[in-house]
């Protein structure tokens, strides 16, 4: 239920950074929670937060924008959108491999953010919270389409390419130092959807296997297996690309 007032005038107001005393209190509370939260046992839910915070450091002005957006300030919500749009969209695009769908779901993720931002309490980094929301939006979308999140074919019938025997007797070509990020990005795009999903969630986004298993409705072993096959497939793809460059 959305109980946040959306002020259409404030949306058009750029750089609205005035903070009244009520907002200052909210901001102080949020900052205090972020910096002095008591140590808690690391649950499956909380454990990845540390990794996400390391990879998603706080952005200057984010806390103020959150506090004001929680009060219904549209300009602050737009600031949050501009801070996080690239990361959320890239996540959606990597998971889906389709520009139109990625844009639709980016839109849906931010609309959901607007509905739920008042519930953000600062227990985790805002970016962690938002990215998890975006992941759930994508997974929900795929479930609605009836697409398996983990491909049975990929799970049960590994190809020769994925199997370990391929590496027996092959020449020793170390990838280290031979690939750039653009090449890796393109190779990730070529992964089958089931492999790509686990690879993006684990290796790119930093989720752990227990979390991925819950998200995708598969076993932890299955998540590990899919990730391994994804990396093996990437190795093969990257070798092909390296060979192509060498032959050119």
């Amino acid at each position, binding site marked *: 239920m959305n109980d946040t007032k959306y002020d*259409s005038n404030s949306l058009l107001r750029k750089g609205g950074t005035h903070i009244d005393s009520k907002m200052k209190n909210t901001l102080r509370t949020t900052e205090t929670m972020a910096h002095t939260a008591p140590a808690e046992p690391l649950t499956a839910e909380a454990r990845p937060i540390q990794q996400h915070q390391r990879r998603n450091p706080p952005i200057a002005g984010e806390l103020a924008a959150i506090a004001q957006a929680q009060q219904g300030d549209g300009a602050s919500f737009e600031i949050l959108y501009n801070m996080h749009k690239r990361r959320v969209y890239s996540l959606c695009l990597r998971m889906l491999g389709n520009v139109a769908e990625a844009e639709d779901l980016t839109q849906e993720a931010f609309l959901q953010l607007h509905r739920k931002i008042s519930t953000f309490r600062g227990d985790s980094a805002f970016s962690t919270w938002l990215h998890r929301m975006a992941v759930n939006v994508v997974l929900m979308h795929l479930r609605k389409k009836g697409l398996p999140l983990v491909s049975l074919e990929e799970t049960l019938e590994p190809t020769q390419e994925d199997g370990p*025997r391929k590496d027996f007797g092959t020449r020793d070509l170390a990838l280290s130092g031979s690939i750039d990020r653009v090449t*890796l990005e393109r190779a990730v795009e070529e992964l089958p959807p089931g492999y790509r999903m686990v690879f993006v969630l684990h290796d790119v986004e930093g989720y752990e296997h227990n979390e991925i298993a819950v998200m995708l409705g598969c076993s932890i072993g299955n998540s590990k297996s899919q990730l391994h096959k994804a990396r093996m497939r990437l190795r093969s793809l990257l070798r092909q690309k390296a060979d192509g460059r060498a032959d050119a």
Partner: protein
Amino acid sequence: MTTKATDTPKECNEFQQELPNFFDTGEDQVEHPHLKTCENCSALVRDLEYIAAQAKLLLPIHDPSPAVWENIHSALLKKS
């Protein structure tokens, strides 16, 4: 580091069957006995570690089109 005659494909096969769990043990993978003698499996592990390391460095490089914010803006205005 060379592949000894004792490092049969069977040993490589057994090692590579364990690979999905290999990277989650928290142990120093280089210390695995098989890797001390098998160049192929060592190269494989190095490549997989390299891919995982590079993936962590992938930056969000794509921006949504301006239409995305316009749609969000319109939807929020309708709600209000």
